[in-house]
């Protein structure tokens, strides 16, 4: 049973948009799709994208989400929005009105963030849907092609997915073609007065560390067919859509929560909506014990920034920062203490985790650094292509920052990369302070 009508949705949307505009927000138009529970789970499995290529991992995501919600491990879904123009968001028809109001106000915050934050400047939101659609169509033709079929398609996708985040982490930097890069280095050698480039081999591949393993394999493997290269390219392109989101999760959610709170406060909601709204809002921003709730962290930082420097400062922050710079700037001792943050690690000897630092004067910086080293893409190890030898052996190296790889996982990914590359590969990392070679 629903307690709302389409007219009511329109009514509240109109008000929410009015209020949003008075705060100086500037967002893409939003298309709300009203869908049922199963469609919601489906949409969530495909990370909200209304069209996506087929892969069993999305079926897995569906089963897992469905199980989690059924087991009550997680509340019912209420918000999901994708960075396109117009923004596409989903309202679950089973949800009551107060959740829709929160969702709609929240989505305006997200859409405003997508449109204004500079991390998203190069994402061309107009092209998001057409790109995913074209990819879905292409994968479908490959699956239906009797000479290829689903198994071969999956082999490439499985392997590519394993390294889908091994792409450059700074959005908006164009990948140079090899010939363009060659010219750059030729120029450097010509302009070199210090002898730095005396031993530089202009013919080596790659000319500089290549962090984009997928693109490198696509460009340089001698064992791939055209459709296989195209598939790898599709996965690589998809990653570029997700990277800005991974870089701004805390800010994006914090901003959306701050805005839904501010907007709803101006709506003069009747009690029957306002009281359950408050309850839900408090659930959203509660700390998750022993973990980081991005809604809680982002919201509290914005909230204090507003109290100290005014809303204008918040508007500016949402434009220029990403999570890393945001936390470095605003997560100070006072904030760490207020949120009672701590760092911990797993102790092999005791077979248990224990607290390393708490947010007192001595420890808060370490806590903050621990936190920053685990947010978004920082939780993913950096691997780069160092060299392609004459016999096509590929040399990969892990940029070791003190944290060792999970060897079991690394071994599996190693196998995937070798399958994809088709010639021998080596992977170097550091394990317990010793050089380790796969």
């Amino acid at each position, binding site marked *: 049973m629903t307690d709302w009508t389409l007219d009511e949705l329109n009514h509240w949307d109109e008000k929410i948009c009015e209020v949003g505009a008075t705060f100086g927000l500037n967002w893409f138009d939003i298309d709300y799709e009203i869908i049922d529970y199963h469609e919601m789970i489906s949409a969530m*499995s495909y990370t909200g994208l209304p069209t996506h290529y087929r892969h*069993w991992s999305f079926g897995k995501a*569906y089963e897992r989400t469905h199980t989690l919600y059924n087991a009550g491990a997680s509340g019912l879904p209420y918000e999901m929005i994708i960075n396109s123009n117009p923004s596409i968001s989903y309202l679950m028809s089973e949800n009551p009105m107060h959740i829709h109001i929160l969702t709609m106000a929240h989505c305006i915050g997200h859409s405003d963030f997508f449109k204004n934050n500079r991390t998203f400047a190069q994402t061309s939101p107009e092209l998001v849907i057409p790109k995913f659609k074209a990819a879905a169509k292409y994968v479908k033709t490959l699956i239906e092609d009797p000479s290829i079929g689903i198994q071969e398609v999956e082999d490439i996708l499985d392997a590519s997915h394993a390294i889908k985040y091994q792409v450059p982490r700074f959005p908006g930097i164009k990948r140079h073609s090899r010939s363009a890069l060659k010219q750059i280095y030729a120029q450097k050698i010509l302009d070199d007065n210090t002898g730095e480039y005396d031993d530089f081999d202009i013919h080596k591949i790659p000319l500089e560390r290549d962090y984009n393993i997928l693109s490198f394999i696509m460009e340089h493997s001698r064992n791939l067919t055209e459709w296989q290269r195209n598939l790898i390219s599709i996965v690589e392109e998809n990653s570029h859509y997700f990277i800005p989101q991974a870089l701004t999760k805390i800010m994006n959610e914090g901003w959306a929560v701050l805005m839904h709170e501010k907007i709803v406060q101006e709506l003069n909601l009747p009690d029957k909506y306002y009281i359950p709204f408050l309850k839900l809002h408090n659930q959203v921003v509660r700390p998750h014990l022993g973990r980081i709730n991005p809604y809680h962290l982002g919201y509290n930082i914005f909230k204090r920034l507003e109290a100290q420097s005014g809303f204008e400062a918040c508007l500016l922050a949402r434009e220029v920062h990403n999570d890393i710079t945001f936390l470095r700037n605003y997560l100070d001792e006072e904030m760490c203490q207020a949120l009672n943050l701590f760092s911990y690690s797993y102790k092999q000897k005791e077979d248990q985790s224990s607290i*390393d630092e708490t947010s007192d004067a001595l420890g808060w910086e370490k806590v903050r650094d621990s936190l920053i080293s685990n947010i978004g893409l920082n939780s993913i190890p950096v691997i780069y292509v160092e060299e392609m030898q004459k016999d096509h052996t590929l040399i990969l190296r892990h940029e070791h920052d003190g944290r060792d790889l999970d060897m079991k996982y690394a071994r599996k990914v190693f196998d995937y990369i070798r399958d994809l590359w088709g010639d021998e590969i080596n992977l170097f990392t550091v394990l317990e302070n010793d050089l380790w070679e796969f």
Partner: protein
Amino acid sequence: MSTFREHKSIVDRAAADRGRHKKKLEKAIKESIKDVIADESIIGQNGKKKIRIAVKGIKEYRFIYGNNEKNGQAGSGGKHDLKRGQRIGEKRARKGASDNAGNEQGEETYEVEITLEDLAEYLFADLELPDLDKKHFRYLSEDVMRRKGYRFEGIRPRLSKKETLKRKIKRKKRAIRASAHDPDANERFPFHKNDLKYHYMKPHPKENTSAVVFFLMDVSGSMTTEKKYIARSYFFLLYQFLRHKYDKIEVVFISHTTTASRVSEDEFFQRSTTGGTMMSSALEVELEIINKEYHPNSWNIYTFYAGDGENWQSDNNSAVNLLSSLKEVNQMIVYTEISPNRTHPEEEEEAASTWTGPTFAAWREEDRDSMWTMCTHLMDTKFKRLLLTKSDQIWDSFKEIFGIKA
């Protein structure tokens, strides 16, 4: 202003990927089947019923950091007082699925919904059925008459009009060539006795694909809930397996104490009665039902007996006699003892062979008159004997009785 669109989807877009995922999961499902079989909730249900089973997830590998001291994490402490060195979380060894976001190291398990029919598919896919067919699934055969070729002699109802007409046409053509008949003249060309051809009917053996399964169980006081629970899982598996093999299958439940009666499935598993144990009573009822309803010529008969082996000694002889007469009409009889406290006979033998101390013949003596020992001489491909001590043995025992090495 935003726009709203009520989405009416015609297709379940995730269906294909879920199906594909499920295929990948089948292996994992097979691995958890032992646990599923031991689970009470699946028994006595029809094949369309969906059950949820917990399956280890298929991992999606990527580069991740190991969980160790060098990889510090951060979290919020809520309103708790925190101290350095304070232990948090559970010991890893006890920890099940980890829901730590972005950390897939914990064994990921989740529930998959499958129908009992699917489950049976998975179960028996392993069992190399073609071999089994020859060995243990003799179908009864019955002769049916089938048309095969033609003869010149026959009875009128078997006349083949087509062949007869063909012969007549041939004869007419010959007559025309020999100028014995003028087709243009308005002259009749009648059938001749030699034109007539008849279908020939030959007896043909036909496989009979209907089966009846008798489940016999001791429900006397000594059969505890635990034992019944094992019996139930075991019967379920047998039923599913046979149902898989035959087109038509009927099940008869007979429970007994000192007297036996035919009962419904629910009563069979739920009713608990006190009293002594006379296995022969159940066998008599079975024989009676076979004589009345299931003629051995048209039914493949299977009998599965489950009890705890505590049959009254005075009854053992008549029970064995009945078993041997039932063996004549059954495709297979399996005598099963469920005794959670007993060691498996093989282990016993092993223990005996390594035992160097004095032997106590009297102990063995006591066993000599037990049902278990007394039915030894009946054992062959049609008669099996089985001891279950734990529910997780069911699957292996099952494979054992059908002659498959695990």
